[in-house]
């Protein structure tokens, strides 16, 4: 197999190529101006998509029907929890982060309990949970416009040589998730379950603990994302997570993870996140309105999933 084939054969390459194409189109439009700044901004924003994208990726890899629709509400709540706990005090940053993680974890565990104990399909369970979480968030975060502690907000915005620190950390995190996916018992269990849950049971995989861990992790990552978003945008609010539902699923799908489960693609999540963010940036550069952005994002999702197709015919 030639080198070119070896490179192009990897599915995640396409998302990076797509990102590259979009970036070129954008700077072509601006006449080459601001290309670097665009990349920096894109990296910053992509971070948030990657964090939840990874969580959603693991959930989707569990197999058809598994998806976490409670992410936006989870993020909103976690942002409020984090900010309230930090209370504008730099010394409480770690505590605030921990609180956000716990809040997300609670959401993940609640989702799993609904799915496992009440045998509610994950879509419905997470959707219903999201409404409840939304209410919790509204009443909890009512009124005060909570600002993050200045140190934390700055940290979320630091750049090293034009590359956001958060992006570097997230790249490391993605690499860690990649290792977890391929080299932990849990990661193998998830991909086995997604390929064939019956065969996984017969092969001795502990299915329910693996599913529990996956939903819990996705919840925690949502919590983390909420805290980081609040820091970056210097404030928490209920709607801060709204665009991350479609974004989390989009980066998973566009990045090459199979929606029928069993095949996860971690580098693709980064590539797809960059692609999406740059696409939105490009649309902004062209001066399109919010409506066009929404339509474009939606159509791209439909196009990508159509091109990828559904389950294999076998079985």
């Amino acid at each position, binding site marked *: 197999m030639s080198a070119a084939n070896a490179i192009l054969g990897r599915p995640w390459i396409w998302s990076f190529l797509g990102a590259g194409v979009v970036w070129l189109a954008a700077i072509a439009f601006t006449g080459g101006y601001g290309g670097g700044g665009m990349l920096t901004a894109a990296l910053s924003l992509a971070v948030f998509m990657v964090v939840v994208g990874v969580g959603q990726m693991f959930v989707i890899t569990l197999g058809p029907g598994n998806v976490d629709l409670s992410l936006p509400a989870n993020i909103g709540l976690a942002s409020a929890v984090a900010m309230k706990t930090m209370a504008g005090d730099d010394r409480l940053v770690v505590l605030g982060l921990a609180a956000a993680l716990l809040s997300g974890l609670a959401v993940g565990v609640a989702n799993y309990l609904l799915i496992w104990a009440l045998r509610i399909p994950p879509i419905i369970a997470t959707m219903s949970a999201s409404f409840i979480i939304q*209410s919790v968030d509204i*009443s909890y975060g009512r009124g005060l416009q909570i600002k993050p502690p200045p140190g934390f907000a700055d940290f979320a915005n630091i750049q090293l040589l034009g590359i956001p620190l958060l992006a570097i950390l997230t790249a490391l995190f993605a690499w860690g998730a990649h290792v977890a996916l391929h080299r932990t018992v849990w990661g193998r269990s998830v991909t086995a379950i997604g390929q064939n849950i019956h065969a996984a049971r017969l092969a001795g995989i502990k299915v329910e603990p693996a599913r529990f861990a996956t939903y819990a992790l996705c919840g925690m990552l949502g919590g983390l994302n909420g805290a980081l978003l609040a820091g970056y945008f210097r404030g928490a609010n209920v709607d801060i997570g709204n665009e991350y539902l479609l974004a989390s699923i989009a980066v998973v799908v566009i990045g090459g993870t199979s929606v029928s489960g069993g095949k996860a693609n971690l580098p693709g999540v980064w590539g797809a996140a960059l692609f999406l963010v740059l696409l939105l940036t490009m649309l902004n550069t062209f001066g399109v309105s919010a409506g066009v952005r929404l339509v474009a994002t939606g159509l791209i999702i439909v196009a990508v999933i159509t091109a990828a197709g559904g389950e294999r015919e076998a079985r």
Partner: protein
Amino acid sequence: MTAPAAPAAWSAGGTDVRRALRAALPALSLALVVAAIAWLNPRAISYFGFTLMLNLAIPIALATMAQMFVIAGNDLDLSIGPFVGFVCCVSATWLRDEPWLGALTLVGCIAIYAALGALIYWRNLPSIVVTLGMSFVWQGLAILLLPKPGGKAPVWLQAAMGVKPPFAPFPILAAALIAAVGWYGLMRTSYGAILRGAGGNALAIRRAGWSLLNAKASLFALAGLFGVLSGMALVGITTSADANIGNGYTLLSIAGVILGGGEFVGGKVSPIGAVLGALTMAMAASPLLTFMRIPPDWQVAANGAILIIVLAARVLISRSEAQP
């Protein structure tokens, strides 16, 4: 030879009771909600009271019917809410100002829904992802059409929704009509049986020579049709439109179908139950909670909670119903 099958009594009395309980669950839930309202605020139980409370029941019932068709085919439509919103916006602008353009658009929307169904079947796509993507498309189109709330519903639509029949509140009559149409179409016609069968055992339907592609496209087209009707009804009531007006309808419609005894797989849905479920959700979604003095912040949660409670109740009933 195998063990002899029990001759005549193929269901113990206990199973019958539980099955009857499950079938009656939609009506019971509705009765429960009405009773609660009657207890909290007796004056609400009147012609005027019902008309007011069930104000939004008609669009909700229509959207629930739309969702029911999709669920009958083992899929889920996560875009029905934004779609209803988009139809509202079209109705409040084009349908009023340029009726032929508006009508063409709405018919085109139904065609798009049918095409989506065909696409989902042809490429074996997960309906969650496709409809989630479409939800953003409809949302975006609605925003493009009406960036700010506005528009005005066509006069004839307002008049239709403002009818005041003498004996029973209009929403109740309309709901009964919707239930009747849905019931007849899906449960009584010969092709309706095929559509449901496609959800129950697609392979058997295909082996018998029917086209599953047509079945899927038909189910989605019906969803599109009822979605359009829902949006038109909604704008007839609210008289003006806004791009986000329909967003809650996704969960409401799913909850209505489930409350009405529908199941996510197996092609087991009930049109009458779905309408009853929609009425229950319509009353529980706002009026009941207001009477219960639940703060508006928590009313959103109540919708989610209701769905969970109903599903939990069903699981408990079927666990006790499980074969020995």
